């Protein structure tokens, strides 16, 4: 068995459990909320139109965006009510997925109740059933197969969409897919996809058993289907054995690329060595990660000077690295009580990179040279670059007008430049693939791109915890850019791939 496969399998049970837990709870809430709404909607047109409209509207929002929206929504709600509402992890995922489950349940519920033969309803009223008796004895039993078909749809959608819960810090089978995609570990992606699909099929099959039992009035089918589902949920709700052991739990965040996974693993090793129990929140969006840290949802992560400078402090000027670091340390502490523990020693700066042969053929060595050639070039950017202030700064400094520009996920960005679909891409200075693929980065004579020192950030809660900061301090200044590039390449390359975990041990062998 390949190490990638066995590692993916080792992660599978806990992720499947978390996945089942969040999607199961979401479907249960969807039913608990959707069924009464369906009953009200079937009775009153005034309720039906807005309820079905709203549920349909929610469904048109991409699941990824819906999940992402609940992070700031819950943050605002938390600060408005003064309650400690966790904005990251289980709660936002649960709320978003529950809403997502609502539409098929409400829509089928309404159709089921409206589809009951009017003669049967007249007879029910005629023999003196109260509205409640009519609902329980006639409408729900007769509508049950259609209602259940809606629950099945909701369950399959929710289990699929729950893979995206990873992006708001709720562990799910999506962890395997996202991390596998970022590190080009296709075995991991496949294991994640197959597990999510299998889970959806099993749940759908069990619900189909219940549905056929309702149709054929065979009690054993209903009991067997519901029993198996209840047992699976009970298993998911039960705490994992050994989870209670160990010391204090700290949460390590990571954004969605290889370097972040490696650094998070290195941090994890250091903290475990210091006696902490650790949890990971991987694949966080760029601003979500910082807000999560400030709110205490995560305790530590690595971010980059220029990113914080532009996105968090909303600054557009471009001071030299030392001045920026000092200013960030001062401002983040004053603003959010976030501790900038120190710089790791390398920069992961935005750079524009081209294939060496292409750059030489065009005679391009700096961004200044690009100004005249840009109209003939295809530009490939990562998913966030084109909406970032750095891009506006580069554009105003160099007046770049490309023939075309497209966004790629980081993995496919390098594919695009090697196969020629893009002439020029955004790259990161610490990326091992720059050397491995023989790319050149273009110089920035006008200093439009800010410094991107890798900084170790600690949450307000842990800022004063000397044992915590003491455990991480050895990482400060310990990672030169060559080593980071090498570690990144170990994970990103196609042959002899290593996991981020292995790369972290190579990068920081003293970790444990």
């Amino acid at each position: 068995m390949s190490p990638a496969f066995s590692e993916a399998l080792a992660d599978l049970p806990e992720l499947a459990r978390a996945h089942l837990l969040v999607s199961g709870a979401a479907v249960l809430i969807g039913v608990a909320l959707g069924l009464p709404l369906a009953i009200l909607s079937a009775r009153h047109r005034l309720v039906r139109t807005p309820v079905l409209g709203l549920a349909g509207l929610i469904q048109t929002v991409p699941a990824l965006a819906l999940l992402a929206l609940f992070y700031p929504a819950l943050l605002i709600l938390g600060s408005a009510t003064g309650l400690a509402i966790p904005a990251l992890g289980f709660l936002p995922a649960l709320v978003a997925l529950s809403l997502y489950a609502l539409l098929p349940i409400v829509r089928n519920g309404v159709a089921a109740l409206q589809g009951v033969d009017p003669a049967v309803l007249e007879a029910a009223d005629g023999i003196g059933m109260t509205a409640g008796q009519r609902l329980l004895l006639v409408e729900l039993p007769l509508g049950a197969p259609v209602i259940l078909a809606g629950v099945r749809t909701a369950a399959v959608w929710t289990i699929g969409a729950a893979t995206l819960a990873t992006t708001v810090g709720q562990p799910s089978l999506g962890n395997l897919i996202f991390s596998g995609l970022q590190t080009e570990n296709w075995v991991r992606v496949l294991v994640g996809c197959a597990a999510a699909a299998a889970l959806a099929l099993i749940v759908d099959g069990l619900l189909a058993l219940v549905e056929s039992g309702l149709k054929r009035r065979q009690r054993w089918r209903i009991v067997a289907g519901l029993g198996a589902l209840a047992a699976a949920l009970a298993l998911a709700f039960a705490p994992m054995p050994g989870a209670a052991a160990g010391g204090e739990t700290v949460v390590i965040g990571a954004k969605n690329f290889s370097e972040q996974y490696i650094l998070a693993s290195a941090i994890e090793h250091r903290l475990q060595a210091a006696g902490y129990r650790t949890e990971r929140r991987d694949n966080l969006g760029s601003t979500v990660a910082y807000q999560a840290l400030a709110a205490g949802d995560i305790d530590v992560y690595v971010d980059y000077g220029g990113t914080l400078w532009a996105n968090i402090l909303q600054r557009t000027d471009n001071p030299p690295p030392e001045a920026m670091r000092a200013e960030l340390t001062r401002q983040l502490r004053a603003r959010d009580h976030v501790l900038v523990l120190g710089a790791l020693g390398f920069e992961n700066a935005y750079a524009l990179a081209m294939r060496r042969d292409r750059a030489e053929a065009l005679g391009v060595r700096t961004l200044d040279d690009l100004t005249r050639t840009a109209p003939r070039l295809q530009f490939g950017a990562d998913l966030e670059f084109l909406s970032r202030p750095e891009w506006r700064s580069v554009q105003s400094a160099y007046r770049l007008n490309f023939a075309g520009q497209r966004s790629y996920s980081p993995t496919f960005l390098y594919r695009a430049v090697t196969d020629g679909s893009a002439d020029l891409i955004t790259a990161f200075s610490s990326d091992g693939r720059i050397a491995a693929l023989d790319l050149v980065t273009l110089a920035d004579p006008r200093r439009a791109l800010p410094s991107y020192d890798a900084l170790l950030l600690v949450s307000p809660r842990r800022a004063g915890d000397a044992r915590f900061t003491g455990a991480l301090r050895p990482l400060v200044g310990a990672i030169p850019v060559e080593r980071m590039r090498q570690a990144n390449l170990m994970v990103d390359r196609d042959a002899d791939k290593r996991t981020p975990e292995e790369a972290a041990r190579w990068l920081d062998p003293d970790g444990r």
Partner: protein
Amino acid sequence: MFSDRRTPSPNPSPLGRGAGRRALMPSEPPFLEIEALTKRHGARAALDNLSLSVLAGRFVALVGPSGSGKTTLLKSINRLVEPDEGTIRIDGRDVREVPAPELRHGIGYVIQSIGLFPHMNIAENIDIVPRLTGSRESRAAELLELVALPAEMAGRYPRELSGGQQQRVGVARALAARPRLMLMDEPFGALDPVTRDTLGRAYRDLHERLGLTTLMVTHDVAEALLLADRIVVLIDGRIRADGAPAEIVADDDPEVRAMIDVPRRQAERLAAL
């Protein structure tokens, strides 16, 4: 035989005794009393200031063209329709005094589309009625016998029964709460003529044996004439004619005559074959 109304019928049907218009005996208070009932659908009145009294034990047929208000009148009695004005009393008690479900427990209701519960077997369809009032009593066997269905029907589902059998179950279900009043809306209208005739006579027999008071809506005038003690002709939400079958066939109102003429001409043509 279907002659001028002014020739008094020498020998009025014994069933029609006392059921004629304003022919109530002062000693016997009416079982069902409807007073000045009005129900409007927009500008049109489905029932227009209608009054009607029925003595206990009578079998009254409500006939009239579509839209004449027959069904609205019937449904007002068990409050499936709430009239705009007027009062209805059953055995001296205003129907609005009790909650509608409770009122309906004491009134049998049979409709053309039958409305058996498809997810319940025949016994469950019948026993649902006592269950609604919290009784555990099962009358299915007894009632199946009463409507002349074999006992082994109890475990079958409605879809396995013929239309006539289903409506027998419909009648059995209506009788399950031991009602004194039966409201029937075109109960046999969807059945084939032979089944329809059989069921009609069987029900008339039950009506006698159980001492029921029955109001039956039908637009089959022949059925009404043959089954009922008293016929009430509704046109445009008002009573146009009211009397024993023999009196109705003698009515000289042109619209009533037109209705009555249909079965009479059919009978004459049949006789001429």
